[in-house]
């Protein structure tokens, strides 16, 4: 815990600064009500009505997020192996190469099916 504590000290100082300056910003600025000023900015036209619960967006972003999870987990497997690379020896290398091949197959499939296209 002695090792992790200082991170939160620094984080706490940062958080205090952020909160204080946002409060100062809210107090120090002028307050002049104007209906147009409170609308969503869309280059001057009437703002598009937004559906309750947020706007809709393309499924591509979900796909990207799923892919991110797959690859991030792969990396989480790679890190311990990389750190103890010398200790794990040939067995570790072969096991990890087999794992990488597996992931690469999934990656190639995804690529071939057009999951990585953005056009």
């Amino acid at each position, binding site marked *: 815990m002695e090792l992790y504590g200082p991170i939160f000290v620094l984080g706490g100082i940062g958080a205090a600064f952020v909160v204080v300056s946002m409060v100062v910003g809210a107090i120090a600025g002028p307050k*002049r009500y104007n209906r147009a000023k409170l609308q969503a*900015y869309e280059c001057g036209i009437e703002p598009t009505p937004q559906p309750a619960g947020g706007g809709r967006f393309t499924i591509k972003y979900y796909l990207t997020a799923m892919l991110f999870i797959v690859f991030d987990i792969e990396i989480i497997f790679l890190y311990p192996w990389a750190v103890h690379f010398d200790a794990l*020896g040939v067995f570790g290398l072969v096991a990890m190469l087999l794992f990488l091949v597996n992931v690469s197959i999934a990656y190639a499939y995804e690529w071939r099916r057009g999951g990585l296209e953005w056009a």
Partner: protein
Amino acid sequence: MTPTALETAGGGLLLAATDDPLAAFGHDPWWVTLIKSVVIFVFLMVCVLMMIMADRKVMGRMQMRHGPNRFGPWGLLQSLADGVKLSLKEDIIPRGVDRTLYIAAPMISAVPAFMTFSVIPIGPEVEIFGLVTPLQLTDLPVAGLMVLAAAAMGVYGIVIGGWASRSPYALLGGLRASAQVISYEIAMAMSFVAVFMYSGTLTTSGIVEAQQPIWFALILFPSFAVYLVTMLGETNRLPFDLAEGEGELVGGFMTEYGSMKYTMFFLAEYVNMLTVGAISVTFFLGGYHAPPPITMVWEGANEGAWPVLWWLLKFMGVMFLFIWARGTVPRIRYDQLMLLGWKVLIPVQLVWITAVAVVRMLVNEGAHPAVTGAVVVGFSVVVVASIIGWNRAVRRQRAAEAAEHTEEMRRMRETAEYGGFPVPPASAPHYGSSVPAEEPRNTPPASTGKREEVTGA
């Protein structure tokens, strides 16, 4: 392997990981920790102000103008004045926003940005006023992971800010930015694998020590190159600043933000830049150690307070790279950005990690240098051959597509049903011409019965 043997082996590994390298950390009295934290915080704030200033000044010089030069000596206080001005702006919360998330987003974005710097080593263990302490706030057995985790936390601020604003521009900007950051994070995390392989530890101080004879940037150059690219992508900097491409999305996810809330996003962006720059110095550029040529001619280069100077110089060099890239490289398209992240950087890293692992294992196992050399050459040949083959296939496919397109266009021009689509007859009246149309408006153009041949299509 029996369970007991496995346990011992596991215990040995654990011991090796937690035993020695962190002995210097975690013994500071609370007031030393506090002083260090405050110093790091102040250093970051000053760095942000200077970085904004340098950004504008260097950009100005690159574009043959002066940049800000009015406030303070050489305009050095300009960003401070901007900060004060921003705090005096009206603090607007637009109608219809999700108030809690709208206010929380800048905080979520800014706070984790500060935290990464606690594991960045700025110098070795030094003695100040009789107190021996490392010039680093703390170090963790998992510092490498912590760095990535803190970098990833910023995405929450972006996506929540875009979502809570209830505005199309902000939503699109937030989604784009988060998709970009997570895409580049994969390549970034992969570029660290080779570093951890060579250092054998995740502690930042251990990684710096492991680069004592030679920098990882030199022996693991592909990792470093990929890291430099992802560094720009991860922080939404030009040429990858699609999230706030002014021409398309106004201000991206910060469109609806103003006053200090906007300032917090801005601050987070710059602190993130400083952080990834400091990480590149730590992981690839030898940290606080003097560059090898200097240590050869001057033995005292790594003693006393000098390491801090080397660290600062390297840090400033990397920061200059950011501005340089911004001044030289044009912004790329969003699909090109995702293509680079997913289809170039990730395969390159997969191949590179495999190559590094195999070669290092050969060296570890004491294989004959000729065998290692043959493997390296064979690997390079296979990679180059597959890249060339790939390029050929792509080019052939593109040529076929282009020929098909030309043929289709020709058929469309010549088939009567299409009416010469997509090229209008050259005689048609058109807007924007200084020559008035010949036909009066109300009489239909005389039909000749025969389509005119369109030229210049």
